[in-house]
């Protein structure tokens, strides 16, 4: 307001004298005339908060209404004129009736509010936890890296009696297609003779296929397939003999060849890892 007066320069003295004192209480003036037109943008029946419509509302006499260009503008109500608005649109049904005490329903209303708040809190905490774990787990290994830890092997490529070697997780993986004779022979081995007793059926899911890690359990060399005295593998470094199931039979190695985790996706495909 003051800045307007300062900027108006030469007009400053004239700008001050525009405060209206509206005399007399309870003299309502009729609001403005309705002009009939095609489109009325404002609803003329709704009273505007302007000097004319407010002039009868205050019970106070004297300068109860002031309007000016660079002074305060407003209507000074007596506090008894102020009507608390009707908030029925926002009330809960139990407190709509002004003639009923609100204490009776206060427990129930509070319980409902707290229940809703509690449920919303639980849901938000769960959502927050999900978001946070998603962001944090984005820092762990990505899918392509994880994919490198598995290998999918097409079994129809391996003829019977042959052993194929694959590179898996940096180590050699032996996949051997066994003959019926070999299967029967391995199943019949007496566990008492074995250094690391394991029955053949405990080392394979499908007896036709033996899948083991090609790492000698002695000192880590790679055994040679279809070699050795037992029809399985032979490690040339220190002379460990393994059978067709990958079990140690002769030589310095203490344990059988390790069997990794694998699953048969179908009869023709196996996923190792």
């Amino acid at each position, binding site marked *: 307001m003051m800045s307007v007066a300062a900027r108006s320069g030469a007009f400053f003295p004239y700008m001050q004298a525009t405060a209206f004192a509206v005399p007399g209480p309870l003299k309502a003036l009729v609001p403005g005339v309705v002009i009939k037109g095609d489109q009325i943008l404002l609803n003329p029946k709704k009273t505007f908060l302007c000097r004319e419509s407010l002039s009868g509302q205050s019970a106070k006499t004297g300068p109860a209404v002031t309007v000016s260009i660079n002074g305060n503008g407003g209507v000074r109500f007596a506090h008894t004129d102020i009507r608390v608005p009707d908030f029925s649109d926002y009330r809960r049904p139990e407190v709509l009736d*002004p003639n009923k005490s609100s204490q009776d329903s206060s427990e129930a209303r509070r319980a409902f509010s707290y229940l809703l708040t509690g449920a919303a809190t639980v849901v938000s905490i769960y959502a927050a936890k999900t978001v946070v774990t998603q962001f944090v787990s984005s820092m762990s290994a990505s899918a392509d890296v994880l994919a490198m830890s598995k290998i999918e092997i097409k079994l129809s490529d391996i003829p019977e009696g042959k052993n194929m070697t694959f590179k898996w997780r940096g180590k050699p993986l032996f996949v051997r297609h066994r003959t019926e004779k070999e299967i029967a022979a391995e199943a019949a081995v007496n566990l008492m003779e074995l250094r690391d007793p394991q029955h053949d059926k405990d080392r394979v899911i499908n007896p036709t296929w033996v899948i083991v890690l090609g790492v000698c359990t002695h000192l880590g060399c790679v055994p040679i397939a279809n070699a050795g005295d037992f029809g399985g593998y032979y490690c040339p470094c220190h002379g460990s003999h393994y059978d067709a199931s990958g079990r140690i039979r002769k030589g310095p190695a203490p344990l059988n060849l390790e069997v990794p985790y694998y699953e048969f996706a179908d009869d023709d495909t196996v996923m190792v890892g």
Partner: protein
Amino acid sequence: MAASVCRVGSTVGRSLVKSRSPILLSLRRGQASVSYAQSLLGAPETRLTALDNGLRIASEETGQATCTVGLWISVGSRYEREKNNGAGFFLEHMAFKGTKKHPQSALEQQVESMGAHLSAYTSREHTAYYIKALSKDLPKAVELLSEVVQSCSLNEADIEQQRGVVLRELEEVESNLQEVCLDLLHATAYQGTPLGHRTQQNLTRHDLVDYINSHYKAPRMVLAAAGGVNHEELVGLATDHLSGLSFEYEGDAVPVLSPCRFTGSEIRMRDDALPLAHIAIAVEGASAASPDIIPLMVANAIIGSYDLTYGGGKHLSSRLARLSVEENLCHSFQAFHSAYSDTGLLGIHFVTDRNNIDDMMHWSQNAWMNLCTTVTESDVARGKNALKAALVGQLNGTTPVCDDIGRHILNYGRRIPLAEWDARIDAVTPKIVRDICSKYIYDKCPAVAAVGPIEQLSDYNRVRSAMYWLRF
């Protein structure tokens, strides 16, 4: 050492008094002449009679030279409807403008020549007209009272003139911000109900006559007197003058007070030009006849009141008062309880400057939470003593006693003697205070009213959150 000096001094004083030495009798003046227990039991009984038309007459005879006699009527702004809002207040103004038998000047002359005071007040549920006069003028006083109530002249010219006076009085009330604040508190707490009513101005004679005819009925009135009054004489006078009061309602339309809904809400009248902010916060309290009133009054006595003129400084016993001094929180505060027939407002009203509102509100609500959770034996003992002292101390004269009688009969149907108040107050324990305060205050939606430079008053949700403690 000081204590022993005092003991010696008082024994010396007592022994000198016993010897009836005239000079030293003045030493006795500082000591109470009657002990507290004696004052409880020694109060004369309030006698209550009823006339055939339902008018009740109650009096306490104390043999003094003066008396106060008045009519207490259970009607107030709560009984008004929207269209006759303000009729009671207007009528109170019209009452002394003359009766059918005595025009205004004659009425004034009658009262003045007795040397009496004729006053009236209206509140939300009660109206009272009373005269303070000499005991020997009791018959005249009762006659004038009965005329004022039954045959008020209500002529048009006076009505118009009084309208201006009422408006002026309303304007004057605007400057009493405490009244404005508490009025706004009622308006918002009891919004949409008769207890939150505002006053209207364009009332006619017809409205006032209607008001009298529908509310000034004998069963709702009490003729109360205190001082040098004789009960039989009073009953006789009442039979002479007041048995004409009607007890039937037109169309059998007995006005029944329906309960008033309390709404937890707020109303803010911000005006940065005012120097001080008046803020009141209240929850729904107990009704006048509820047994919970006593613990709530004790609780209010624990919070107490304060204003800048209190000399106790940081040694004041109320915790909130001590904080107000130490932290310069406020100019004044008071804990109040307005009890109506079926509801009440239990709250704290404080006056402070624009930069301490947040702190004061925080500590006020903190005081409430303390009451609900951790109030101690010593707090309750102090509150009980303060309350007893206040109850006894305010009955200091025939007019307060008469007012007490009138209001009690209207609220409770009988006068509750001081001994009974004392017994009920003694029965309050810290656990009772905690339980009752939790029932009314803990985790309830308050009503807040604020006037003045109240920018610092925090949002209603914050105020509402301070009505419970997470630690409990």
